């Protein structure tokens, strides 16, 4: 029983730490568009990426496969809006995403990679659903704005259920970790709703 609880907590904290790393990296990339004081990378200053690296290192030391697969899945999903753009690697977004997905599946297992992929998609969709109005005003890319709010919400539920189906063992801990982190971020960014 204790072992199960320890594993649950370690997975939960691993998700929280990798989520912090993803959030800082995302805010770092969005610095030009997001001039608000709620931007985590702006608040942390020039060392923000170092904090992100420390956070992902802590997450990886708690649970390597979950944290790294979540991080890679976030990278892939972040590319979704730029699938045809070319990056410094001289590959376009689609090629980079495919290579990272295959590498992740090879190193961490296809089940874990697929689970993380669908889980991160669901987080992205619910985030876009909540931020629909704000992103519309700012002119940021938003799935709820693109495909419709109801479709976005239904797709969120669908992808969440698919990720649950793919990996039933780790889903509860990952879900709790994600909910804790997301509500903390919402509290930190009070007033963005």
């Amino acid at each position, binding site marked *: 029983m204790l072992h199960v609880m320890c594993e649950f907590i370690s997975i939960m904290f691993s998700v929280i730490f990798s989520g912090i790393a993803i959030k800082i990296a995302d805010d770092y990339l969005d610095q030009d568009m997001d001039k608000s004081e709620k931007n985590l990378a702006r608040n942390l200053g020039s060392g923000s990426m170092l904090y992100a690296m420390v956070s992902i290192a802590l997450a990886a030391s708690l649970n390597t496969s979950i944290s790294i697969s979540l991080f890679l899945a976030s990278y892939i999903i972040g590319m979704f809006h730029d699938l045809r753009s070319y990056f410094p690697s001289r590959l376009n977004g689609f090629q980079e995403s495919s290579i990272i997905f295959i590498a992740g599946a090879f190193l961490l297992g296809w089940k874990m990679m697929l689970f993380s992929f669908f889980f991160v998609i669901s987080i992205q969709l619910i985030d876009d659903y909540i931020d629909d109005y704000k992103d519309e005003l700012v002119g940021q890319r938003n799935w709820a704005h693109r495909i419709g709010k109801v479709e976005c919400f*239904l797709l969120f*539920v669908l992808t969440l*259920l698919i990720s649950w189906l793919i990996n039933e063992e780790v889903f509860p801990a990952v879900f709790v970790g994600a909910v804790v982190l997301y509500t903390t971020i919402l509290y930190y960014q009070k007033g963005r709703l």
Partner: protein
Amino acid sequence: MLWTGIIVIMALLSGYIWGKRDGIISVSQQNLLSTPLLLRQESFEKGYCILCHKPRKKRIIYKIKGQQGGRI
């Protein structure tokens, strides 16, 4: 249980998208038919074309104002 949920959500999603698409098509077809009629009705009521603001036939203006019709 999970499979049931997935199937239910997929059915809801496809039904919603189908209905929305159908609605958009039927509304746009309806608008194509009704817009010229509404434009004409509005123009007749105001006495001038509401797009180019040129007066319509003067008899129409007189009729609208309750006066006797007839071209000048």
